[in-house]
Structures are given as C-alpha cells and as structure tokens.
C-alpha cells in the first residue's frame, strides 16, 4: 500500500467502492453511503413500495453527487447505481459517469467504469467517440490489467464504429508476446470480425504463429479466432487447411500427456481446448478428403480412449461424434460414432440422452441404416419424463419409419399419441398421417389409422389435414363404404372433435348412399337417422361455423342420393334465415338450385353443381375472343373453397385432347360457350374428372378474372 501525502487534508485508503473505512471528504455533504450498506438497507425493505422509496431517495442523492462532479465518490455511486440497475430500476443518468470513471487514472475507477459501460451502455448509444478515445489510451497503458479491461469491454460491446477505429490496436496486441494480452486480443479480434467482416484480412498475418504458443489460454482463443475466420470466408478456410497436422499434434499431446494439474478436469487435460480443436477440425475437414484423412486416426483415438464416466468426457465424445459425422470419414469411423450415440442413449444422465437424440436426428438421413439399429432404444425414449427428450424421440421415430417397420412403429406412435401432452399432439398426428400415406401396408390399415388419430387426437389435428384426408378417402374407391360406416359410427360416439366431424360430414354427404344401402358389414342406418345426425351437428354448440358448413353441404348433397328430399328441402330453407352469414348464403343458393332445377333433380349436371363446394382448380389464364365469343381456359390444380352461382347457360364443346402432357409440355383446351343475356359478371366454376397414374381424380376450379369486355 502506497500513500504519499503532503497535505493533511486529504488522505484516502481504500480497496474498492465497498470498503469499510469511512472517509470524510472535503465536500460539504456527508460521504455517500457505502455500496454494501446500501445493499443491506435495500434488502430490509418488506414491500416493493418500500424498496422503491429507498431507491428513489438514494438515486436523488447520487444525482446530486454527480452534479457536483465529485471525483472521490463517483466510483462508489456508480457501483450503487449498477446494483439498483440489476434490481430493475433505471440508471441511464449514470452512463456518462461511467465514461468519466474510465478516463480516471485510478484502477478502481476504471474497473467500475468499464463494468458500468458494459452494463449500462450498448452500441446504440452515441458514446462511441468518447469511449473510443479512452479505450485507445487504455489499450496502450503500461499496466496489463488496464489493457485487459479495455480489451474485454471492446470485445464485449464494441460497436462497428469503435471496432473500425480500434482494430489496429487489437491487431498490435495480437502479436504481443504477453500471453495475458494475446489471448484477450484474439477474442477481441473475433468480435471485431463479427462486427466488421471486411476487417478480417488485417488479422491474417498475426495468426501466423498463434498455434505455436504453449500457453493454453492463447491456444484456446486462437482456435476460436481461426474458427471464426474459416467460417466466414472460404478463402480463409482453404488457407488454414494446412494447419490440420498441427492441430492434430496439439490434440494428441493433450490426450497422451500425463496429468497436468493446471488444466485437468476429472482426469482429462483441458477439455475446453480439446472441444474447440475438434470443432475447428470439423470445419477444416468438411468436404475435403485429404484433411479428413489426416484427422481420421486422432478422431478414432479420442473416440475410443476418452473416459465416459463424467460429463466432461462425454462432452468431448459428443464433439468428436459431430466432427466424424460432418467430415469425409471412413465408414468404420462413422459406425463408431453412431454406436457412441447409441451408448449415450442408454446413459443414466438425461442430458447425455438428450444430446444423443439431437445428434441422431441430424444423422438419420445420411446414416439411416446405422441409426435404425438403435430404433428400439429410441422408441423407449418416447416414455421418458423429460419433454425435450420425448419430442426428439418422436421426431426421430418418425424419421425411422419405413415400409418394413410401419406396423410396429405405428403401434408405438399411436400409443404415444394417446398419452402424450397436448403440445405434442398436433405434430404427432401430422407425422402419423404422413407416415401412413407413405408406407401404409393396406388401404384398410390406412383408413383405420386415420380413424384412430381422428378419434383420439381429433381436436389437435391441423386444419389442412381435413382436405388432405378427404382427398385420400376419395382416392380409396374400394374403401368408401367401409370408411363412411366407420366415420358415421364415430360421429354417434362423439361430435366434439371438429376435424373428425368435418371429414365424417363430407363422407356422409358424398357416400351416404353406400351408408344406407346395406353395403356395410353392420346394420345400416336408415336415411332419417343419418339426417338426424347431420342436423344434430347443425344445432350443436360444439360445432364450429366451418363444421356447420360441412354439415349443411352434406345434407344438401344427400338430396340427390336419398329419397327424403322434402325433409332436406325443409332443413335447407330453415337455414336460409340463419344468423350465420356463410350458412345463410349456402342455404339460399341451395334453395335456388332446388327451385330452378327441380325438374332436373336427378340429373348428373345438378349433382356436379352441388358438389362444387370444397375444392377448386386455379385458372392460370383465360382469354376471350370477342369475334367468336369464346373463352379459353388454362388451368392448374390447387385447392380453394367456392360458392355457387347460376345466372348463365353453358355449352361445352369437345376438349382438344384427352391427355394433358406431363411436365408443363402442353395444355388441354376446351371451349365453353356462355349465354349471358343479363350481362352479369362472368364467374365460372368447373369440375374436372381425370385419371392420374391410374387413379381417378376429381378437381374443381373457379375463375373470377374474366376480362370485363367479355360480359359487359
């Protein structure tokens, strides 16, 4: 401790802002309360209000002190401010004071000042100029701990402008022989590069002998710097590939060297450095045969020799596995890596199981067969208590489903769907649908699986599943009777799950004739029973407006399939005055259809028109030839809901061809003559029936963009 004093007035001995010795300063006011005392006092507050009052009082005192430009206690006051800031109170009035502290010559001031800058300032504030100068001076200070503070602050919160201005200083320090500063400069350089990528080049010369350092701190931060540069620039990456042998050597030394107390963690030498080197090797080896070969042996060595009893060893193994999977490793090495992950899955430590599942998820596409070997362990993880593990196990399980294991896997996944948390149900349901679509061993299995999902997790099924399922059911022609029967039965049990109800309604509307005709295995319902169920959906509180729409449409469609048309007409006319606008519109239009085409109610054309309610074809372009009053349409297949319109008469001429060429090589055109005596706006709906890859497909289209001169 050094005290030099020639005046008896001002002597100060202190070790920091919270020091116990009290000092009387030359100012008129009593000394500001010490930091630790303030903390003690604030903690005695029994309510939030009491705390706020204390804080406000102290802030007022601090503000006065700042106004008086009191150098002596600035440090103490800023420290207190930082404490209050951590409690959540505003401290912006202390920002400039931090800068004054940084500019002070006292180390304590600088320490608190830089801390304050890192806590209270960020690059959004306009303090760059002020800070830059201070930091520049301190980067050249005679005391390395001051230089360290400056490097740390710049590397933590330096703005692009500051980085630009100070990059040169950082580069200088990167070349120093002082390892304390060199290691900090390396990480500071990383930050500079992230903020101002164009400056990366200037650090290249300084990297020349970074890896020759013996000091682990410098080695570690150098590897981080090299990693950053390689990730940002393919040129740098190519340039640094030559470091692979050196990196391999360093890693080898770490593994082979005896016990080093300074860097030992549970018997492993400097695991942080090992992990960092492994990651850099991954980047250097990726896509490069020579580099990958050069690191093959060391990776195998690390993979087989690393102690696995503690987390630290597994951390290294984990990084090794990631590297092996990413580079061009031999197949033997890859299998070794997957097996490590397989062992991880059996580890008692759930953290290890978690990373294993994450890694397996990343490799399941490229090393599918190797991962398949661990399928049963993965499926077991579906029962894990941890929600993150469950999610990953679910994702991985879906990735592993194939034609061979579909039945067994689906059993497990459906069981999971039954019992899992709601947050999983939507994804799981979607996954089941996808897997079933790809690998269903039979149509009946497929329909049964869909039914199972709809009945157990029906309310979580995604909205887009409904049209997809309808499409699927449509295509399974031989299953129509079975499907509608099962769906009908499900409706009898439960009408609360909307997707199930919607799909069921649609099917009943479409295949109602099969439902009542005795084609089903069980006793068939009679028409009135079916209509009862559909009408029940219309009035139920559980039905959403969309569901009601489906129900009403189904009822309407049954008018061409059932004989109780009068009952249907009655229902439809009731809903002509429904509060629900959508329902009302539909009902009104259906009513109009009934009236207009009463004489044609058995006609195929009417059936087609009524069916035009669920999907559509998007018209790519349409052109109107005024000379011949012909509208030509080119169409494309998508989906969109429609409504009915009927103020025109159409004459369909023969299409140009029976076949639409593949791969957009051509189109089929069909001329439709439109009689529009009332000069109503032309809108058209069209239904297509065609075969695609041997199966029947139906699709509907709507055109709303006819050029005005075609109908005006």
């Amino acid at each position, binding site marked *: 401790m050094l005290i030099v004093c020639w005046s008896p007035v001002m002597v100060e001995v*202190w070790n920091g802002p919270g020091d116990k010795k009290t000092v009387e300063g030359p100012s008129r006011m009593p000394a500001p309360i010490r930091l630790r005392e303030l903390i003690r006092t604030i903690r005695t507050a029994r309510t939030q209000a009491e705390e706020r009052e204390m804080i406000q009082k102290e802030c007022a005192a601090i503000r006065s002190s700042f106004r008086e430009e009191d150098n002596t206690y600035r440090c103490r006051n800023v420290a207190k401010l930082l404490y209050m800031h951590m409690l959540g109170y505003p401290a912006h009035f202390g920002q400039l004071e931090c800068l004054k502290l940084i500019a002070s010559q006292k180390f304590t001031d600088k*320490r608190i000042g830089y801390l304050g800058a890192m806590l209270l300032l960020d690059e959004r504030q306009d303090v760059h100029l002020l800070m830059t100068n201070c930091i520049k001076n301190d980067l050249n200070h005679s005391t390395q701990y001051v230089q360290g503070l400056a490097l740390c602050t710049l590397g*933590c919160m330096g703005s692009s402008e500051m980085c630009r201005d100070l990059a040169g200083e950082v580069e200088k320090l990167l070349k120093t022989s002082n390892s304390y500063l060199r290691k900090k400069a390396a990480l500071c350089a*990383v930050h500079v590069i992230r903020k101002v990528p164009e400056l990366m080049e200037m650090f290249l010369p300084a990297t020349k002998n970074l890896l020759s350092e013996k000091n682990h701190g410098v080695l570690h931060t150098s590897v981080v710097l090299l990693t950053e540069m390689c990730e940002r620039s393919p040129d740098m990456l190519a340039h640094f590939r030559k470091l692979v042998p050196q990196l391999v050597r360093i890693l080898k030394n770490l593994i082979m060297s005896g016990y080093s107390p300074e860097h030992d*963690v549970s018997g492993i030498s400097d695991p942080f450095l090992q992990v960092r080197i492994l990651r850099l090797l991954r980047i250097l080896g990726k896509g490069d045969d020579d580099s990958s070969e050069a690191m093959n042996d060391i990776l195998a060595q690390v993979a087989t020799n690393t102690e696995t009893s503690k987390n630290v060893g597994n*951390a290294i193994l984990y990084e090794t596995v990631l590297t092996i999977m990413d580079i061009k490793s031999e197949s033997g090495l890859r299998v070794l890596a997957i097996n490590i992950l397989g062992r991880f899955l059996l580890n008692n430590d759930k953290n290890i199981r978690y990373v294993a599942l994450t890694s397996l998820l990343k490799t399941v596409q490229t090393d599918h067969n190797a991962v398949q070997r661990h399928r049963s362990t993965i499926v077991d993880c579906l029962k894990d208590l941890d929600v993150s593990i469950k999610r990953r196990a679910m994702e991985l399980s879906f990735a592993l489903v194939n034609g061979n294991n579909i039945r067994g896997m689906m059993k497990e996944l459906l069981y999971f769907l039954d019992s899992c948390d709601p947050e999983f149900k939507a994804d799981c349901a979607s996954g089941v649908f996808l897997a079933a679509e790809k690998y269903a061993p039979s149509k009946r299995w497929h329909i049964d699986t869909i039914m199972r999902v709809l009945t157990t997790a029906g309310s979580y099924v995604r909205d887009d599943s409904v049209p997809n399922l309808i499409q699927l059911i449509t295509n399974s022609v031989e299953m129509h009777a079975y499907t509608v029967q099962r769906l009908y039965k499900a409706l009898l049990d439960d009408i609360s799950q909307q997707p199930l109800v919607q799909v069921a309604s649609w099917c009943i509307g479409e295949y109602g004739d099969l439902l009542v005709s005795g084609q089903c295995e069980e006793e068939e319902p009679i028409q009135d029973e079916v209509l009862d169920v559909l009408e029940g959906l219309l009035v139920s509180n559980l039905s959403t407006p969309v569901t009601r729409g489906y129900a009403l449409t189904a009822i309407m469609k049954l008018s061409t399939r059932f004989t109780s048309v009068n009952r249907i007409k009655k229902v439809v006319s009731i809903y002509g005055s429904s509060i629900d606008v959508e329902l009302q519109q539909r009902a009104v239009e259906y009513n109009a259809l009934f009236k207009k085409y009463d004489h044609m109610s058995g006609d195929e054309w009417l059936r087609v028109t009524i069916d035009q309610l669920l999907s559509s074809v998007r018209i790519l372009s349409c052109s109107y030839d005024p000379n011949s009053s012909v509208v030509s349409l080119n169409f494309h297949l998508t989906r969109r809901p429609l409504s009915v319109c009927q103020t025109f008469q159409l004459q369909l001429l023969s299409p140009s061809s029976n076949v639409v060429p593949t791969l957009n090589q051509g189109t089929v055109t069909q001329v439709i003559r439109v009689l529009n005596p009332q000069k109503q706006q032309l809108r058209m709906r069209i239904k297509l029936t065609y075969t695609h890859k041997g199966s029947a497909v139906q699709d509907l289209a709507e055109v709303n963009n006819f050029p005005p001169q075609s109908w005006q």
Partner: protein
Amino acid sequence: WRRNHRNTSCVIMSNNMQFMLLFSRQGKLRLQKWYVPLSDKEKKKITRELVQTVLARKPKMCSFLEWRDLKIVYKRYASLYFCCAIEDQDNELITLEIIHRYVELLDKYFGSVCELDIIFNFEKAYFILDEFLLGGEAQETSKKNVLKAIEQADLLQEVRYVIKPPWEQ
C-alpha cells in the same frame, strides 16, 4: 431478435454464448452478462420470460431446453440458477462445464461461495466472469491463471494515489 451482424454467406455460422443469467429460486436476478446488443426493454423481457420458463422446470428434467431459436443450458447450485443461452451449433455438454468452472472460480475466490456473496459482491462476480470469459468464449482454461489475474487486479485497487506537490502542478 437474431444478432444483427450475421454473415449469411457461409456454410456454418459462428456460434457462442449470447448471454448468461444468474437468478435465485424466487426469480431475483443476481447477475446478467449480455454478449449481444439488445435494448434494456428487450433484456428485461427475455429475462422475465426465461426465468419463468426455467423455474417451471421439474427436477427430473434435463439441463437443456429450446427457447425461441436458442438452446438454454442451466444448472442449479444451491439457491442460484446459472443459465446460459447458446446457439444451435454449440456443445451443450461443454457449456455445462463452463458453468461449473465459473462456479469453481467463485468458490475459490470467496471461499465456499453462497448466494449472499454474489449479492453483496456482485461487482467481483462480474470481474471474475470477465477474466474467465470474453465475448462469450473462454479466454483462460486454467483455473489458477484466472484467480491469479483477479488477485493481481485486486491489489491494484489499493491506493496509488499520488498528490502532486504544488511545485509540480
């Protein structure tokens, strides 16, 4: 709220720790170190949400969770939660070791550290962290060296306050 200096032209993105939070079981913040530029408002929002999320975790759950587009690594030591946010490519297991190393440093410095030490000497907790990590990466992997540096810096805080004699002013 992705970091605004991402360079998207490369295959792998650089990764590191975005922030570290220390908080009590009652959700009181004891230390916050941010390695990404965010407004005070955003920091408060993140802190509030994350603290809530972590405190809701049950003991049987693993130390990792996905939150927004980050990975959160947390561990409880006595009454304090140590919580780090790392990016997608980062190694969760080694992050646990980073947290553990920091706890060891605090323990050595304060002598059997407890939450009260961190509360009453928060600035020292920061100083120690800033000697161990820089910009979210470990700058020193030797425990001894970190502690030595802190010790030397602490010594520097003693008075070297020279008042110049009037004939030199």
